[in-house]
C-alpha cells in the first residue's frame, strides 16, 4: 500500500507541508481564507533533531493500530489499509492522542481528534504534503507491508 514517507536528507524544515495539510483539510478553496489569522493544526508535523536535521511525521497507517483499538467511540477504523476517523462520532476524549506511539493523532483545535488520511477524503487527489514539498522530501509510495 502507498504510504507517506520522508526523505530527511532533503527536508528543508520549511514547514510548508504543515500549511498545505491544514489548507487541504480546511475544505476551503483559498489558502488565505482558510489559514490567515488562524492557528493551524496540521496532521503532519515537522520535527528537528539535535543535529538540525528536520523531517515530517504523519500517520504511519500501521499494521496494528492501537488508536483504532483504543477509540472509545468507534470513530477510528482501518479501511483498505487507511486508518480514518469519523469526525461525526469522535467525542474528543483524545485517548488516541494518548496511545499513538508516533504522536501522529492530534487534536484539531475544536476539541476532536484528527489524523492523516492520505488526503483521500478531501479534494486534493493526492497527499497535499507530498505535492507541495518543494524539495521532494516527502514521497507517497509503496514500500511494502510490515512483517
Amino acid at each position, binding site marked *: *500500500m502507498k*504510504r507517506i*514517507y*520522508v526523505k*530527511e536528507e532533503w527536508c528543508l524544515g520549511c514547514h510548508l507541508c504543515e500549511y498545505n495539510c491544514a489548507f487541504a483539510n480546511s475544505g476551503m478553496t483559498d489558502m488565505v481564507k482558510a489559514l490567515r489569522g488562524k492557528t493551524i493544526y496540521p496532521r503532519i*508535523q515537522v*520535527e*528537528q*533533531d*539535535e543535529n538540525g536535521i528536520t*523531517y515530517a*511525521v504523519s500517520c*504511519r497507517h*500501521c*499494521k496494528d493500530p*492501537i488508536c483504532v*483499538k*483504543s477509540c*472509545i*467511540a*468507534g470513530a477510528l477504523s482501518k479501511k483498505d489499509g487507511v486508518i480514518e476517523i469519523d469526525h*461525526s*462520532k469522535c*467525542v*474528543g*476524549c*483524545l*485517548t*488516541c*492522542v*494518548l*496511545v*499513538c*506511539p*508516533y*504522536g501522529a*493523532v*492530534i*487534536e484539531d483545535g475544536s*476539541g476532536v481528534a484528527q489524523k492523516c488520511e492520505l488526503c483521500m477524503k478531501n479534494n486534493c487527489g493526492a497527499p497535499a504534503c507530498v505535492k507541495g514539498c518543494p524539495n521532494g522530501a516527502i514521497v507517497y509510495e509503496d*514500500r*511494502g*507491508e*510490515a512483517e
Partner: protein
Amino acid sequence: MKKYVIIGNGVAAAGCIEGIRSVDPEGSITVISAEQHPVYCRPLISYYLEQKTDLQRMHYRAESFYADHGAEVLYGRTATEINADTKQIVLDNGDSIAYDALCCCTGSSPFVPPMQGLDTVDNKFSFMTIDDTLALEQAVTPESRVLIIGAGLIGLKCAEGLHSRVKSITVCDLAPRVLSSILDDKCAAMMQKHLEKNGIDFILGTSAKEFCGSHAVMQNGTEVDFDVLVLAVGVRANTAIVKNAGGNVNRGIVVDDACRTSLADIYAAGDCTEYHDISSDTVKVMALMPNAYMQGHTAGVNMAGGEAAFDNAIPMNSIGFFGFHCHTAGSQPEGCEMYEETDENHIRRLFVKDDKLTGFMLLGHMHRTGIYTALIRNQTPLSSVDFARLKIEPQLAAMGNAYRDKVLKGAV
C-alpha cells in the same frame, strides 16, 4: 464448526468477536447481552448528556456489525451459571447454551457503600449505562440541583455532562482531591480549580453520612439540599459467575497474557478482569477501555486457535473537562524520580525509575503524548534515548536514528 459464546456485549465483547473472526471465519458466535442496546462504549454516556453524541452515533460499530461477523446476540438475557465440565452456560430464562470456547466480558457494576437514609431518596441514579443515562436525563430540569457522590472519573464526567442542563452541581468525595485514583495532589488541585471555574462545587475529604429525602448531611457536618442524586462512588468487577464455576478470582477474574482464566476454554476480558501492569509489575483491575478491547481481541484470537498475547498492559487515562485535558499513564513506583515542568495552565510530571519511564501525569494541552506512553509500554531504556529533549516535549527526534529510520522509512 466451533461454538463461541461471549457473556457480555461491551467493547471487550466486540474485540472478542473481531479477534475470533480474524482467525476463524466459520464458527458460530453467540453474544449474551444484558442490555437491550448493541455494543457501545460506556464512557460515551457523559458525552450523550453533553449532546456531543446521540444514541445512533454512540454505536461502537456499524449497524451491520453482528451480521457482518456472523454473531447472534441474545438481547435482554443474562448468564446465570457456567458449567465448566459440561461446557454449558445457563441463562436467566433457563435455557442452556453449549460452548467450545467461552469469553466472560461481564464488566463491572456500580458499588454503593451503605449510607444511612439512602432509601428515602427518590431521584437517585447510577451512571454506568445508557439506561441509567436516559433515566437521569428524564429526571433533571434546568432548575435541578444535583449532588454527585464520587469525584472520580465517572462522577466528574457526569458533572460535565449535566453541567449545561441543570442549575447547580455539587460533587463530594471521601478523598481529599478530585480524580484521586489517577492524579496526585498538585495535579488534582489544578483540575479542581478548572472545574470550579466552570461552576462545579466540591465538598472533598468527607462523605455523605445520611440522607433524608432531598437533604444530605456530610460526615463533617456540611448540609446539602439537592433534587437529583448521582451515585458514582466506584465500581466492582463482575466476577461471580466465574467464581461460582470454580475459577480463580481475586478483585477481578484472574487472567493471563492470553486472557485465559484458570478454567479450561474459558477466557475473560475487560473490566471484570485483573491482570499484569508492566509499569508497576503488579496485578490489578484496570478498568480501561483500550485495554478492554485489546484483551477481548486477544481472547478472541486465542479462542479461535490463533496465538495472541496482551503482555504490555499499563493503566492509562485520557480525560478532559470543559476543554481542559489530562493524560496519565503507568504508575509511580516507590523510589521513582519525578521530572516536572509546570506553569499556570499546565503540568508535566514524568516518573522515572531504573532507567525507565514508569508513568506520567500531564495536564493542559495534549500533544503527541502517545510517544511517552510508548516509552512506558515498550519499557525503553531512557539511556538509549535523548530524555533531556523528551522532557521538553514528546518527539521522535529524541528516540534515536535507528528508531526513526524504522518507523519513518518503512511500513510499521
